């Protein structure tokens, strides 16, 4: 067993564009579920709309990279409004059903061959980072940066820097909102929306605002993901939604840093498992083939999610008193 490679790859998982993208999406989910109590199981749909919004407006409409990203964000806002208006008046569980369906509809719309010219269908989209000038906007000269497991070429470094900047702004934004009286109303709605209504607050408007804010974070996650890899409809599947949920619950749903740290732990753990499990299979310790071993990690993620919800529902950073699942 090559422990050196395993450790190296695991540590590299601490800081990758993927980790940042998922931290952003988890931050959006923290807004939705942790603070506002909105059960959104369609965060993958917000990510897909952010990513496709960016890629399509660059490739099809010739937008510059920043214009495309703004389109991606506007797309997630519209998706939140479209989703929210019919469902936010319903009980929470119905929102969960509708969001999971809406995210699938979005993915299938991007996958269908009817719009191949625009969406690239199953092949997805690529080359937009060059076409839109995102790659050229890189301020770092070509070369190798960092040390040990954290060695990056200038392109990755640019995506990382950009992603960290966006993440920092979003974290600040969420923090600033949640310490304000606006945040107090949002948390009140999570606890009991009828009581808040009886105090004269327009609960529907607040819920829609929360859905939009979280949706923007999710869309930004999709954009950062697209800035590093190609846009492919195979990425934005329902299991991605559950990975993000796991990250969120790991860190603590009703916290600011929880979703960020949760995403980091989740992807580091993923990197570790995807390296060690095939090695264990190869060494004959696990009685399965290498490919089977690689998928075994998803089984472990599922078990982990269950244990987490049962034994530590408030997550790592959550207030012990604040058991989000216990009412």
């Amino acid at each position: 067993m090559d422990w050196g490679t395993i450790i190296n790859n695991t540590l590299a998982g601490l800081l990758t564009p993927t980790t940042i993208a998922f931290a952003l999406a988890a931050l959006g989910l923290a807004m939705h579920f942790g603070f506002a109590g909105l059960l959104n199981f369609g965060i993958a749909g917000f990510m897909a709309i952010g990513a496709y919004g960016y890629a399509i407006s660059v490739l099809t409409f010739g937008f510059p990279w920043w214009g495309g990203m703004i389109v991606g964000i506007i797309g997630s806002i519209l998706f939140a409004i479209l989703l929210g208006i019919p469902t936010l008046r319903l009980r929470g569980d119905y929102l969960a059903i509708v969001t999971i369906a809406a995210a699938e509809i979005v993915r299938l719309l991007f996958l269908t061959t009817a719009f191949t010219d625009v969406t690239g269908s199953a092949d997805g989209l690529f080359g937009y980072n060059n076409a839109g000038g995102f790659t050229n906007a890189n301020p770092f000269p070509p070369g190798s940066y960092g040390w040990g497991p954290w060695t990056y070429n200038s392109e990755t470094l640019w995506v990382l820097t950009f992603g960290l900047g966006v993440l920092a702004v979003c974290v600040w934004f969420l923090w600033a909102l949640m310490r304000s009286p606006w945040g107090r109303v949002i948390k009140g709605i999570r606890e009991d929306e009828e009581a808040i209504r009886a105090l004269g607050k327009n609960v529907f408007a607040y819920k829609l605002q929360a859905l939009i804010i979280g949706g923007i974070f999710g869309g930004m996650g999709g954009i950062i993901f697209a800035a590093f890899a190609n846009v492919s409809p195979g990425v934005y599947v329902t299991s991605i939604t559950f990975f993000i949920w796991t990250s969120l619950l790991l860190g603590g749903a009703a916290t600011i840093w929880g979703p960020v740290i949760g995403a980091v732990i989740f992807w580091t753990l993923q990197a570790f498992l995807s390296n060690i499990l095939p090695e264990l299979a190869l060494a004959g310790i696990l009685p399965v083939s290498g490919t089977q071993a690689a998928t075994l990690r998803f089984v472990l993620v599922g078990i982990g999610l269950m244990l987490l919800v049962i034994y530590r529902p408030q997550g790592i950073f959550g207030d012990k008193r604040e058991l989000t699942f216990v009412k």
Partner: protein
Amino acid sequence: MSNNDSPIKSTGLHIGEAAPGCKKTDPMLVIDHVKKSFGGLTAVDVEHLEIPKNAITALIGPNGAGKTTLFNLLTGFDTPDTGAWEFLGTSLSGVPSYKVAQMGQVRTFQLTKALSLLTVLDNMKLGSKNQVGESIFRALFPGSWRKQDAEIELKAIELLKRFNLDAKQADFAASLSGGQRKLLEMARALMTDPVLVMLDEPMAGVNPALTQSLLGHVLNLKKEGMTVLFVEHDMHMVRHIADWVVVMAEGKVVAEGPPETVMNEQAVIDAYLGAHQDTDLGVVTGRISIIDQEKDK
């Protein structure tokens, strides 16, 4: 408030005879033909009802009489099939519940709704109306709301002191006992500076000592110029503090008047207070017709 003090009752509230639907000298709420059915069951069917201003009105009646449903209709939490009602001369038909609350009509719930995972102080501060920082854009600029928030906090602490909850202000509302939650809900309602306070069974499940202090609080509301409408099953409390009593049965107003007279009406005693406490509601139907017969005499 001591046990012996008898609160000063407001009188001269009505015009003409104290009968169901009688006119009030100074009504705060006027209800006309409000009807609500759930499937085949008519929960509320009120022809005409006026709630007097700056007085304590009790709404009593057997279980299933439609008291809470009427509450829900008046506060916009439920929509009636037909009917209209006015609050201080403004029609409230079709007005959403949050706007009703903004107009100064605040309610509490039969099943107490404390916001469990918020601190007691945050629960209170939520009650305050017209907060600048509750707008999403201004929320980002603490300079715009910090001063107002500090004022609200002072007011909240003041009220918490009055309700003996100030020692608990930093705790989650979830840690409060059932009775303390009732107090918190009432205090939170007062944060909205209401003109009409609607309390749904404020005394249910509260121990006698706390009942006494809650009674004091309700009387204080009137002293401060507010109007109170409450649903209650505790007849002792109704007799003690209510200026006016409205009796409902099977969705209809069957009697109203000052507590002393209403509670002596044979119909009310039969329908509600328990001439035959162990008979089921089905029999009440028969007795309500007795009311009509007696009136005819």
